């Protein structure tokens, strides 16, 4: 009996917490894939980012690194509070329709998402082998989130959905980085955050412009340049 009960409990708590959070990421991504309207999409994005924030905090608690707390804080401010707020405001201001414009209806999208989940699982097993179950799950979910982001970018018509798709891909990569390689170097992490922040601002600016010149934000109808 080298392990006390409390230690076992702590270990169990940590692992189950991690799986619950990962499960949260998975569910919020599924919600995004089947969302029909932009506000729902943004709300699910917020849930997903919040799960990522929790995951980072847990890793920070385990490793006791100040850097990780800063990263978690930035994540919360940017992706849970600021960016969703900005997107909500953009919808209100441009007064465009809240419909996402689906190329593929929610039921079929769900099937695609299931396929993606399986694919990313296979890929994760191929990459690191099946011996480490927790890592494989993390990797699989990270890849799934990236794939779901691509899916949103391709099969949703509005410019706003494309921005969110990009952010979702970003989240997936953040998950991959924080879980698999123990995070990027600190200053790179900060630089990437700054980068995401700037890119959302700039894309938001262009959404305004598209709305101004075309009176809609349906990127499917942007087809003046050809050949």
């Amino acid at each position: 009996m080298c392990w006390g009960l409390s230690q076992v409990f702590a270990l169990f708590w940590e692992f189950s917490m991690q799986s619950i959070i990962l499960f949260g990421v998975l569910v919020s991504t599924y919600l995004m894939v089947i969302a029909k309207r932009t506000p729902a999409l943004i709300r699910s994005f917020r849930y997903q980012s919040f799960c990522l924030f929790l995951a980072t905090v847990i890793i920070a608690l385990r490793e006791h690194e100040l850097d990780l707390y800063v990263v978690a804080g930035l994540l919360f401010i940017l992706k849970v509070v600021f960016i969703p707020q900005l997107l909500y405001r953009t919808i209100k201001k441009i007064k465009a329709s809240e419909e996402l414009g689906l190329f593929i209806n929610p039921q079929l999208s769900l099937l695609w998402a299931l396929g993606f989940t399986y694919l990313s699982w296979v890929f994760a097993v191929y990459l690191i082998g099946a011996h480490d179950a927790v890592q494989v799950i993390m990797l699989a979910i990270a890849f799934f989130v990236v794939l779901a982001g691509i899916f949103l970018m391709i099969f949703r018509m509005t410019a706003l959905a494309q921005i969110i798709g990009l952010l979702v891909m970003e989240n997936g990569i953040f998950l991959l980085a924080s879980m698999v390689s123990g995070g990027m170097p600190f200053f790179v992490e900060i630089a990437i955050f700054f980068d995401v922040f700037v890119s959302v601002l700039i894309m938001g600016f262009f959404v305004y412009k598209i709305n101004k010149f075309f009176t809609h934000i349906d990127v499917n109808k942007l087809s003046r340049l050809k050949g």
Partner: protein
Amino acid sequence: MIYFILGIPLLLAIACLLVKKQRLLGILNAIGYLAVLFLSAILLKQIALSGVTRLFLGFICLDTLSAFFIFVIAVVVFASALYSIGYIKKDIEKGIISEKKARIYYLLFNLFCCSMFFVPSVNNLGMLWVAIEMTTLISAFLVGFYNKKESVEAAWKYIIICSVGIIFALLGTILFSYAFSISGLSKSLNWSDMVPVAHILDKNILKIAFIFILVGYGTKAGLAPMHTWLPDAHSQAVAPISALLSGVLLKTAIYAILRFGIIIIKGVGFAYFAHLMILLGVISLIVSSGFILVQKDLKRLLAYSSIEHIGIISIGFGLGTPLACAGALLHVFNHAVTKSFMFFGAGNIVSFYRKHNMNAIKGVIKALPFTGIMMLLGVFALTGFPPFSIFISEMMIIVAAFTKGSYLVAAILLLFLAVIFGAFINHFGKMLFGNLPKGMTKTSEPLTGKLAFLFLGLLICITAVALVFIKGEWIWIVQKLFLV
């Protein structure tokens, strides 16, 4: 030295906020980038002699490859700054943009250049990613600068496609760092730390990571089939910016691919790298030649030609013999110089005729004698006609392909180069000669624009002549670079 090269664009950007007169700003810009050009030439010489140099706590790390790319960027940026003076002045006179917008232009121009200079200087592969993404974000404004429907659409496509592409590159970068961290070494993303230990990294992960890198930075480099943003963005941007985009922005992405490629060659073996590069190169060549044949828009024609040349560069690196690498590296320089030269000419033509459509453009030599003659020379230079520099670098790559025994690659190269040559001569022959459309008269051209032409034109000719004499040294330098 490198601090000045990175600092001068930033100082010039600050100057844009303080100086009110745009003409003064333009001249300041040109002087500043002339200084950068000299500094980068000195830097290149220093680094080539002294080898790898680390500065600023290892944050900046320079070897001959980075110094060479910095030099290429400096050349094109200087020419573009020079050309901007006259071009922006003309736009203001015609009332297309306001005086205030011209200042914004110079501000963005400087920030854009600064971010491009950062790409080859940084040591950390994560920072490399950030620098390349910054170039996208800043230049998106310059693509959408004219605030028309087309330019906003082009800017949107540009920013979305490149951001997605580059996210794949980030994924690849993380996998590289993962491969590094599971090998039991300390956590690091510096290429100077990765290259020496590349052979003990996990081969499977490296292979997959490199595919992500190639898709990601390949999007930015304009390799087909990820090139779709390129013709839109290049054709809608302000002319001096088109030159920068095509001349050096694509090359910074090539630089990033090479940095990872060097790790891959040591870690996985040369054949893997070679096959992927040659495959993408050949696809780019084939796709672009088709679009060049049927093209109607002048600036899109030049944009597709950029895809073609990026394809040739990629084939050159894929062949991988010292001669081929030397040719490819030289082609990076030659294409940067020649393509900016052509975009300046296209800018003059478009601003005179106010049309991009080549069917509506006739008699350029009569309307703009200087530009017309320069363009005539430029077409031959760009399609690889003997006295000019591109001929030499293309020749080096083709000869390397034959001596290596890759006859199929050599045959494809020759065939499509011939097709593209014919298409270009046809398109430009119709445009340059013939009579002027009614109601248009001959106009004079600004002096600074002419200077930019002469500067680049001289470089095109000098490189060709100089190479005849220093070919041996050049190949030796490249050999030192890649076969470490």
